[in-house]
């Protein structure tokens, strides 16, 4: 059940905070783990959803928000395109299930990106379908912002890539 995942994630972050003094180290660690999960999760996702190849960055962003997030976390972030070039998107999450049991970040951990794992997961998954992207947190409800916002910047052109994934 999802609670198990959320609780385990919380225990993981707590353990990492004990092991690493600096927030950036914890963030890096979470991102790296997320990456490892993402490269495997994409196969599971493709197997479960059997979606067709996305033809544009905007389709990809929609796919992540509407299908993947819904499937794994049960929430559907809204997608908005934030650049004229069409390669920067924002996923806006009203409700972030990962922080269901978290009330607030402790004072000495002010720059901890609690959900950095998500960024790594998205980055890893995209890389496995030959899309490289930078994924970061633009806004975080835990830090006092109104919503949680994840920014995805696609770095290479999708049409140039030929891959044989079905």
């Amino acid at each position, binding site marked *: *059940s*999802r*609670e*198990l*995942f959320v*609780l*385990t*994630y*919380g*225990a*993981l972050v*707590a*353990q990492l905070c004990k*092991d690493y003094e600096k927030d950036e180290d914890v963030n890096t*660690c979470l991102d*790296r*783990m997320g990456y*490892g*999960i993402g490269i*495997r*999760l994409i196969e*599971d996702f493709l197997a*479960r959803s059997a979606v067709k190849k996305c033809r544009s960055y905007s389709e990809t962003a929609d796919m992540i928000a509407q299908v993947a997030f819904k*499937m*794994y976390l049960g929430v559907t972030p809204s997608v908005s395109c934030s650049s004229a070039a069409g390669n920067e998107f924002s996923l806006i999450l009203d409700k972030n299930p990962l922080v269901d*049991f978290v009330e607030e970040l402790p004072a000495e951990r002010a720059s901890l990106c609690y959900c950095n*794992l998500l960024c790594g997961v998205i980055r890893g998954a995209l890389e496995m379908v030959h899309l490289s992207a930078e994924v970061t947190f633009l806004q975080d409800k835990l830090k006092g912002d109104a919503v949680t916002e994840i920014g995805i910047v696609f770095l290479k052109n999708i049409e140039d890539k030929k891959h044989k994934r079905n």
Partner: protein
Amino acid sequence: MADETLFLLLHGEIVAGLYRAAEQGDGENGRCISKLENMGFRVGQGLIERFTKDTARFKDELDIMKFICKDFWTTVFKKQIDNLRTNHQGIYVLQDNKFRLLTQMSAGKQYLEHAPKYLAFTCGLIRGGLSNLGIKSIVTAEVSTMPACK
């Protein structure tokens, strides 16, 4: 279920990540296992609180063990414990013949030496659950042939 995949992957990453960090630092095998067990302990405590909010009081230890084998295990691993044995003096053996966290690894004796790492978290989970139900315990795991474990 999709949630299960997420948890399995996360668990795998946690084990890998902890050992990676230990290699670079000075950690010994024992410390990683206890870290994993402690994480499991915290999660177990939280989980059992949420599961038993609405259930009736348990009659005795055996009742609690049965709860763990059936409901708790089903919620966490989507299946029940296959076999529960006891000597009625405080020792219980739970046997799971297709332990979820090990099925992806191998179906025989391969990788046997890595199995304990994957069981540490679950041992902590059980210990945490029992501790919040008022039972102090020591939980150990034994694997002879994957993916079965006791």
